[in-house]
């Protein structure tokens, strides 16, 4: 019987890296989602075009290719990234592109009468967005954002291939050191699943909290 406790420590270290990546990637994805999502509904053609190019590019190529590109090609362009930076950049930009479409859909799903009410109250475009449209749109976005966060969590496993010591990487380390396959991979699968459950539960409770006070607004 090998020293499972030591190997378990290794895997838990990997879990910390995975959580760190997920959090930082989610923040970047959220920023990009709002930038590009609002860009898609902009009045100006050039902003719309830029946002569309960003979204189509990052949804069209796979996360894996983007990560390798960020890690192996950017150094030749004079921009050296650590594996963690490359991972956060690729994950955030990739998931941000998917989430941008969610932002756009949610903003467009808010009823016409709400926009008309903004005009009637003499709110500026920005004020209307900030105080009327977004608070309602946010609630529509939340469940899908939760799914996107889970997708991001799952995508973090790819960074193990650019030598970042996340969960998947540590599982491989344990496999090569012990020769045991079932234990490392099964425990890692269970940890990923637990993290995904935490995200979906968290988003659901956030949703409930935010829905408070909006009862009469949404049908």
């Amino acid at each position, binding site marked *: 019987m090998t020293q499972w406790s030591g190997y378990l420590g290794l895997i838990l270290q990997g879990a910390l890296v995975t959580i760190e990546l997920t959090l930082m990637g989610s923040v970047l994805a959220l920023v990009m989602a709002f930038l590009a999502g609002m860009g898609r509904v902009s009045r100006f053609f050039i902003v719309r075009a830029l946002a569309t190019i960003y979204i189509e590019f990052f949804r069209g190529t796979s996360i894996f290719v983007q990560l390798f590109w960020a890690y192996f090609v950017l150094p030749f362009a004079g921009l050296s990234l650590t594996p963690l930076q490359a991972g956060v950049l690729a994950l955030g930009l990739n998931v941000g592109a998917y989430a941008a479409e969610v932002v756009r859909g949610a903003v467009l799903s808010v009823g016409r009468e709400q926009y008309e009410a903004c005009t009637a109250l003499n709110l500026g475009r920005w004020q209307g967005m900030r105080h009327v449209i977004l608070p309602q749109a946010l609630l529509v976005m939340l469940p899908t954002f939760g799914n996107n966060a889970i997708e991001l969590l799952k995508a973090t496993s790819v960074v193990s*291939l650019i030598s970042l010591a996340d969960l998947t990487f540590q599982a491989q380390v344990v496999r090569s050191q012990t020769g045991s396959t079932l234990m490392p991979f099964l425990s890692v*699968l269970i940890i990923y699943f637990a993290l995904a459950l935490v995200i979906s539960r968290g988003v659901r409770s956030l949703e409930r909290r935010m829905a408070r006070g909006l009862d009469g607004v949404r049908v």
Partner: protein
Amino acid sequence: MDWDWNFVWEIMPTLIQGVKITILATILGSILAAIVGLGIALARRSENRLVSRSVGWFAEFIRGTPLLVQLYFIFYVLPDIGILLPPLVAGVIGLGLHYGTYTAEVYRAGIDNVPRGQWEAAKACNLNGRHTWTHIILPQAIPPMIPALANYFIAMFKETPLLSAITVLELMNQAKSVANTYYRYIEPMTLVGAFFLVISLCSVVLLRWLEHRYGRIER
């Protein structure tokens, strides 16, 4: 950073080899995912609570964990219990199983969308269970869900680079080996990105056509 066209033409045949394997894996994986998804969707509707619950949990678990780890699981753990699979087969099984849990949701929605009256009519015509499914429910449920299914198949196509981690010689792996041989990352990695972008843009056009052709079948 300098771009060398001669090098591009030199490595093109190798990359085309990779593209073929990538497309093959996508097609086989899609077929498997379509079958697995239908199986899961039907099992979840089963009268037997034990079957529907356990299949439901199993699908949930697969959907909440990364494909990469599942591929490792299939590739490394199964040989220990005597099932030795070639890398490509292991990859296709991983893709099919993972995306099967996604397509299962599509099937579920499609089946739920068949009006109750159709079930009652089938009963009134004295059709047995199997005939009800094959002659009444599935023929009406499947066409409207083709665009959604195709969407997942495109997503699967973008995940095929993960197969390189279990030594399948698909596009990404060919590019990596070329890059490591010549120590030039710019051209191979960029070309992989370009291949993916071109194929996914083409498939978006195909998807639009499918939506146009099958999207709105309303009675």
